[in-house]
């Protein structure tokens, strides 16, 4: 298949206008020695029908959807109202560029403005940007932003921040004058306050933690922000599971200065990890250091309300090497999906989502911890994820449960070697009670196996 639209006659006419006899004449500017002498070694072109069967053969090798899964860890299986797919697949949303010409991009711009507002309402902060790539790069951008604001060398990172987010932060700060140091966790599964007290000082730009954290435990953001502010450092809270914001107090109201996060839970399918939706919100005073696109309200020549991309003097196309970030294309279409998702659920729906997640997770937690030897090792409160320590080798349990078509959880030892035979379980509104009971029953069998 090809997607060009010129007839042979068109080509002839166009070449006559240009004054050439062959397209080759236009390619003369490329030195002969650099031209390919044969066709690219890629498979012959496929028709739509052939494409579909090619992908059919590949996708059936994915067996994951046959399983009842309790995986979370930064990617969450939530229900998506059908109107999200329906509306977001419109060509007017899918096929425009970044809204550089606002007069013909009001749809995209007004939706970004609405998205920014929703993020501000959820996080309890003053302003938000149009989006960043994902939770991990949003966390990294937050550390860089705090460093620009504070100009101090130290960044403290909670060890309970998503392990991949920590890796990305380290990759980003490696070439800047930032020393990154980690803060451990306590027996509650929260950050270790003693460790934080010891390491935080006047040289610290920022402390970055996640809530609910990677162990599923909800952090005491108020206490954390008070301690960080005591040392004139900024408190950054990462939200990897934003469905929690339907019930939990907005981090901004608890003293967080910057909130960075992953918006995948809001209407974006698991999609093997992407595209996802990074977001960032902060206090008003930091606006000149906020990375990424921002939509703002203005008026047209007749005084009617309209929206534009604004404050672009922060950005790379104006400021070049002195820009706040190099980001250009971001995740606008994912932000659109999140906006449709959030307004569809609305004030009560988002609360209900959080409520159901929390109750179902706690039901599973209670049932599982009644099995002999199964321990909830962290005493802190959790939202829709929790850590269990099993009285047997996790690998054996995992293998047994896989035979029963269950993926019970994430092996935490891969990320935290000290957490032997511990797994992270995630329960969402997508799990029915019978799914949870099946997990408990199968786990019981797994433990009883010799």
């Amino acid at each position, binding site marked *: *298949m090809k*997607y060009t*639209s*010129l007839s042979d006659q*068109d080509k002839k006419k*166009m070449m006559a206008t240009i004054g050439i006899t062959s397209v080759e004449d236009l*390619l003369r500017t*490329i030195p002969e020695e*650099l031209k*390919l002498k044969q066709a*690219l*070694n*890629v498979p012959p072109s496929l028709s739509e029908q052939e494409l579909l069967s090619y*992908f059919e053969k*590949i*996708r*059936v090798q*994915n*067996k*994951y959807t046959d399983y009842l899964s309790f995986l979370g*860890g930064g*990617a969450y299986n939530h229900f998506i109202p059908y109107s999200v797919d329906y509306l977001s697949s*419109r060509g*007017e*949303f*899918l096929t*425009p560029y970044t809204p550089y010409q*606002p007069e013909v*991009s*009001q*749809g995209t711009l007004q939706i970004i*403005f609405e998205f920014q*507002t929703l993020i501000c309402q959820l996080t309890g902060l003053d302003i*938000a940007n149009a989006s960043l790539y994902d939770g991990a790069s949003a966390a990294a951008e937050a550390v860089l932003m705090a460093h620009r604001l504070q100009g101090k060398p130290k960044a403290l990172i909670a060890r309970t921040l*998503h392990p991949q987010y920590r890796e990305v932060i380290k990759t980003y700060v490696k070439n800047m004058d930032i020393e990154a140091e980690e803060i451990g966790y306590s027996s509650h599964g929260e950050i270790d306050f003693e460790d934080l007290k010891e390491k935080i000082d006047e040289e610290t730009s920022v402390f970055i933690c996640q809530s609910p954290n990677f162990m599923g435990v909800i952090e005491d953001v108020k206490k954390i922000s008070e301690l960080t502010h005591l040392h004139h450092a900024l408190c950054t809270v990462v939200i990897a599971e934003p469905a929690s914001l339907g019930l939990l*107090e907005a981090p901004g109201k*608890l003293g967080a200065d910057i909130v960075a996060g992953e918006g995948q839970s809001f209407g974006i399918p698991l999609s*093997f*990890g*992407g*595209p996802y939706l990074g977001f960032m919100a902060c206090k008003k005073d930091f606006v000149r250091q906020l990375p990424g696109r921002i939509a*703002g309200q*203005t008026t047209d020549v007749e005084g009617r309300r309209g929206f*534009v991309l604004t*404050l672009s003097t922060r950005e*790379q*196309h104006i400021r*070049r090497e002195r*820009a706040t970030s*190099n*980001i250009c294309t*971001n*995740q*606008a*279409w994912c932000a659109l999906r999140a906006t449709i998702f959030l307004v569809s659920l*609305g*004030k009560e729906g988002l*609360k209900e989502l959080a409520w159901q997640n929390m109750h179902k997770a706690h039901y599973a937690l209670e049932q599982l911890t009644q099995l002999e030897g199964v321990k909830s090792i962290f005493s802190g*409160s959790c939202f829709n994820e929790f850590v269990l320590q099993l009285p047997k080798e996790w690998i054996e349990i995992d293998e047994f449960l896989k035979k029963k078509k269950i993926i019970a959880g994430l092996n935490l030892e891969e990320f935290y070697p000290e957490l032997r035979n511990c797994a992270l379980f995630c329960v969402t509104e997508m799990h029915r009670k019978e799914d*949870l009971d099946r997990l408990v029953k199968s786990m019981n069998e797994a433990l009883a196996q010799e």
Partner: protein
Amino acid sequence: MIREPLIFELSAQGKRAFAFPKLDVPTNREILKTLAMRKEIEGFPEVSEVEVVRHFTRLSQTNHCVDIGFYPLGSCTMKYNPKINEKVASSPEFLSSHPLAPQELIQGNLEILKETEGLLAEVTGMEAFTLQPSAGAQGELVGMMLIRAYHQKKGNPRKFVLIPDSAHGTNPSSAHICGYQVKEVKSNEKGTIDIDDLAQNMTEEVAALMITNPNTLGVFENDIKKITQIMHSQEGFVYMDGANMNALTGISRPGDMGVDVIHLNLHKTFSTPHGGGGPGAGPVGVNKKLAPFLPIPVIVKKGKLWSLDFNRPQSIGRVRSYFGNFLVLVKALSYILSLGPEGLREVSETAVLNSNYIRKSLEQDYYLKYQTPTLHECVFSDKFQREQGIQNIDIAKRLIDFGLHPPTMSFPLIVYGALMIEPTETESKRDLDLFIEAMKQIAKEAKENPEILKSAPHTSYVGRLDETAAARNPVLRWDAPRG
């Protein structure tokens, strides 16, 4: 036309657009006891489903897009986005895959990644690819990190990166975030890199040159071999911004030019939809020298199975979570497979033909600063029209009245008042002619009736917007009216 309010202005207590199933486990207020709970999400909307659907449908109708018509944004490659790719990427097996799923259960996904890496390597002539970067700018950053890691290993990360004055703004910004100071290289009278200036600037403290080829004027850097030799002679690298790869597929390969590292924009050359500003994908290709430094994980075959290799001691680490914008990669793979080798070549040949047809048709009406032959795009300016007090913005806004999207404006910086036009290969002669006629008409209006340009656009949902006021007094969110 109905003025569409903000969704918050449609909100009223008690309206619903969605219902959950009844909770099927016991409720337990105890679990909420110790937490900092919120009373409500202040200001959050409550609307009905029909209001949601109409709100977003009406808003969509105020957008111009590729599905509606011509979109000649230079450097952005706004080609048609084939619909079959959307279908392929929306298979439940892809949409429902958890990124931390056991490797043996997601072999199909890993095969797709490996297949895409291989095809991109063939198209560009590079040794290996990482698909992790989410967009072009993140690709640039990864490329710079790879270069820095290499030099670091040799004992000196070096200080400078050379960037032509015609480059995209992301280039200097990415180099800076990677800890480099930027030195600008001048363009010569042909609009290409001034080789003497490059040679003078190249020292043992220069880590790399970031080059765009064809450059942002649409001109092929035909001294590219000399350029790579100059850089390599002092162990500097050549980074290529692949934003303009649409001029070269099946015709010439960056790897054969001596380019050491390149990023591609799959949302440009490889047809994945831009989505109003993303998601894109910015895979990075490297030669043998830089391959050991690629981000982790790398996909390798172990026995019969694909698996993830994290044990790469020289790797720069991870630049984003999981595997990048996977669904975008699926669409790009689908595109490459649908075109095949001849189709890929035809893309570039036709893109070059379309661009040159526009250039030739408009060169009497608009000023062309550089007479050098161009490939897939051409850059005019408003110099002729400025005599009538008309600027490029007036020309751009007037185009909207013809149902056309304006070209890229005021870029590259070396052309004052630039209008950068990239038609892409998918446009019909009729669409090209409509654009040409509109541009000619506008050139005429500039002389005869400049006011109509200055007050444009006249037919759009909103008139010309006050961008200065938006920046001076930023209103960045909706607030509930007080009282």
